[in-house]
């Protein structure tokens, strides 16, 4: 069995299509591990492998995929980590999940997450926190913590998550795996339980860059059901680069120089990775993103504002939790939402409602959208001189469970290296670049809109040189011993 688990998704798909291994056997191997998961990474696991339905001859060969809880999966619980949707089974399936299934990647299980994708530690789930497979006293990151932990622990070959302000990239970094946030609009949002509509994007969490490219290739495409989805220009080829000759990397000192921002261990690893990139032929220079330091503030106005409207549908009328009792309508609404939402979600709904409210719109939401315009302009200007922006994914490695729960602002500040790309709608990838005190560190590359192919290629070259060994959590008792 351990051989099967050791294969990357791409490798497994190839072997299955070549008839060397059985898709059912592979599914079963993962299913068992997922069911036995001790990290609380899963909220639901398939009961059996799908009946053979020709998956073996499809591009993804029947390699199962773990899906973040907020993707609607017909007939299967889709709760977005929230009590207000506990047990909710939607009557339809999200487009990207259907696409992957159609390409031969059946549903392995639903993964745990921060409630409504709000959080950076997966401690905000109504179904309990997820543990980091590298050290179970620590968080896996969030909000796609379950997806990241499952992939890192070898309980899933690969997974999809969502990234609104770093929720794919940051857990990928904290768990030592690859995470890609695509260009906004590249993947359909239909069937994704919404957090912040202008920021949410689905994307892969995988063991390596090749797997990320393979999954992404089968996720993209214009969806008639999502007005904000685009026809992706060009194809995503399997990445092949082995060097970075001619690649110009820009390092934004407006962010890396931030006071009290980045942990020393992370910074050290970042510098070392930059040196490696140089050896591979990249040129490295500082670049300016003057408004990037304000990205966090803009993000924490725009995202909660959109969320406050997106979460208004959870009112106990048509589905989900309702607090019953002899009461009037307004009380029913207010008690249902009070009981059904966790503290972080309530905080953000309040923040968002306030930012949109009469008398405050211009000062808060309106201003934030102007800052957003400037941030996008900053990136466009930078990309005239540089191919990619290089920066750490997260300012710190995995912190201890409970360490930041008392201070919401401290938790929010974790996101400052990831949110600028989200606001600008540009793609960014995190790859594991080493360890700091035994915990994984992520290296982030961001590129202009629709540059995923080149981004994946550059990441591939770097990954090859870094030679990160992600196997320890799979064998060390951190995840499931094989």
């Amino acid at each position, binding site marked *: 069995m351990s051989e099967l688990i050791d294969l990357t998704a791409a490798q497994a798909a190839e072997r299955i299509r070549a008839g060397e291994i059985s898709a059912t056997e592979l599914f079963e191997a993962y299913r068992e591990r997922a069911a036995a998961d001790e990290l609380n990474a899963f909220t639901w696991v398939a009961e059996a492998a799908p009946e053979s339905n020709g998956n073996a001859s499809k591009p993804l060969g029947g390699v199962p995929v773990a899906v973040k809880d907020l*993707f609607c999966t017909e007939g299967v619980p889709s709760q977005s980590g929230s009590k207000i949707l506990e047990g909710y089974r939607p009557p339809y399936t999200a487009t990207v999940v259907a696409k992957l299934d159609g390409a031969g990647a059946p549903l392995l299980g639903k993964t745990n997450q921060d409630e409504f994708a709000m959080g950076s530690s997966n401690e905000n789930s109504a179904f309990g926190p997820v543990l980091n497979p590298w050290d179970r006293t620590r968080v896996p990151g969030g909000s796609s913590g379950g997806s990241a932990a499952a992939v890192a622990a070898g309980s899933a070959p690969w997974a999809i998550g969502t990234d609104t302000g770093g929720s794919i990239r940051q857990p990928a970094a904290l768990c030592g795996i690859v995470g890609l946030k695509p260009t906004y609009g590249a993947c359909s949002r239909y069937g994704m339980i919404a957090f912040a509509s202008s920021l949410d994007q689905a994307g892969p969490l995988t063991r390596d860059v090749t797997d990320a490219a393979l999954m992404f290739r089968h996720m993209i495409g214009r969806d008639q059901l999502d*007005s904000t989805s685009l026809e992706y220009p060009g194809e995503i080829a399997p990445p092949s680069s082995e060097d970075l000759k001619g690649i110009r990397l820009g390092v934004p000192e407006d962010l890396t120089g931030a006071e009290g921002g980045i942990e020393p261990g992370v910074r050290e690893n970042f510098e070392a990775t930059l040196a490696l990139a140089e050896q591979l032929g990249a040129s490295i220079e500082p670049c300016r993103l003057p408004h990037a330091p304000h990205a966090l503030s803009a993000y924490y106005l725009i995202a909660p504002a959109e969320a406050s*409207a997106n979460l*208004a549908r959870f009112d106990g009328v048509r589905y989900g939790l309702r607090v019953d009792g002899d009461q009037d309508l307004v009380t029913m609404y207010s008690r249902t939402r009070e009981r059904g939402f966790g503290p972080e979600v309530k905080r953000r709904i309040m923040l968002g409602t306030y930012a*949109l409210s009469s008398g405050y719109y211009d000062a808060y939401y309106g201003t934030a959208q102007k800052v957003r315009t400037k941030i996008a302009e900053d990136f466009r200007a930078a990309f005239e001189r540089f191919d990619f922006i290089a920066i750490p994914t997260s300012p710190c490695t995995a912190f201890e469970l409970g360490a930041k729960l008392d201070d919401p602002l401290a938790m929010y500040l974790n996101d400052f290296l990831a949110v600028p790309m989200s606001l600008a709608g540009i793609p960014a990838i995190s790859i594991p670049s080493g360890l700091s005190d035994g915990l994984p560190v992520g290296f982030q590359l961001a590129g202009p809109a629709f540059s995923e192919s080149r981004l994946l290629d550059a990441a591939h070259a770097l990954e090859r040189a870094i030679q990160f060994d992600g196997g320890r959590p799979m064998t060390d008792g951190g995840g499931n011993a094989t």
Partner: protein
Amino acid sequence: MTAYEPVIGLEIHVQLDTRTKMFCGCELSFNDPPNIHTCPTCLGLPGALPVVNERAIHFGIMIGLALGCEIAERSLFHRKNYFYPDLPKGYQISQYDVPLCLGGRLGDVRIHRVHLEEDAAKLNHLGASGRIHGSDRSWVDFNRGGTPLVEIVTEPDIRSPEQAREWLILLRTTLRQLGVSDVDMSQGSLRCDANVSIRRTGTSELGTKTELKNMNSFAYLERGVKAEIERQRRLLETGEEVEQETLHYDPATDSLTPLRSKEEAHDYRYFPEPDLVPLVVGEEMLAAARADMPAELPAERAERFERELGLHADTARLFAFRAELGDYFERALGAAGSQGNGGLEPAELSNWIPPLVERIGSDADPSSSNVTPESLATLATMVKAREVSRDAAREVLTLLVKEGGDPRAIVEREGLGAITGEDDGLAEIVDRAIASDPAAAEKVRDGNMKAIGPLVGYVMRETKGRADGGEITRLIRDRLQG
């Protein structure tokens, strides 16, 4: 007693006659069983997204063109946020400060704006009256939710309840001719609220306005507005102030009850809808809308009736603004022409429509009566040719309304043919009239034509109205004055 002048503006909602809803492909419903036309989008299920119906835009542009509005080159959808059971997402997708159309005019009333939005679902109340007060439980039917609506807001140019009613009829005729809606107030495809204020005549400042709702017929609109003007007048005359509030008009009791007071005024927290992209109306869309417009809209038709056909201004407006009258009239005109109309002027023919309307009821459509346009034309021609007197013709009309048929046959059957001076017997009746009232006869002999009335009346009675009044007068005068 101070003279007050009413200042009235109307806010109209029109349900569009598309096949599917505004933001999803569910079919529109017509008194169907509850909740059989829903989908994730119009039910507000988690993860669902809206997609704009292109035909609704097409109809919206047509309405804008018909009302002489500026069609915005670029407009946006906005979220209007509030909680109510008939609003599944907890917000309505509407348009706010960048609507599809601004400005315009129809008849004497200027248009402020026209925009697109989605209709709410239907909230039904249990309990005897079916009304909201006094019921304990309600239930929602989402069939209607998501129906495309156009909202038309006028400037406060209306100065009387009658004008409000007449203008709304004009609007309804215009929209009917565009073919964009059934515009049936009893079915709810045309809904009208009124904003009413009063001010001292001759002043230009606006008084506090109230909003009137629940007037679902033209008659109720007129009565409701009238009642509100009275209420405000009484308040101001007793030294009180008009409060800004929303009032519900009850036609059964002619009373107005407050629905919401100012304290409950909503803070809608409008922001641009991130799930939809901007609407850009280019030349192609405008050309397509123009191509679908009818050749002649009511305002143009009124002008043609007056200018080219020589109808009286009021008649021209009546026939143009009540299309069923205008259509019937033009068919009758056509029939008269093909009958060889003997010099019948359109204006003369038009005089026969009001008596017809009197007999069939002011809201009825002449073309569904027993009187065909051909027979009306025939009747009018017969009167012009003096084959039958005006009075006798009225009797024929009554019979035509009752039983249909051919006017000539009726005249023959009832013996209503005109009696003229050439007929035997008329001279004899004139002699008897003169003999019956020597005093009157004496006055007429002396030149006092005013005294001729009783003598004419005698002959009319004796001939059962078959003789033409003018003819009788001439005969008597000739007899007496030689």
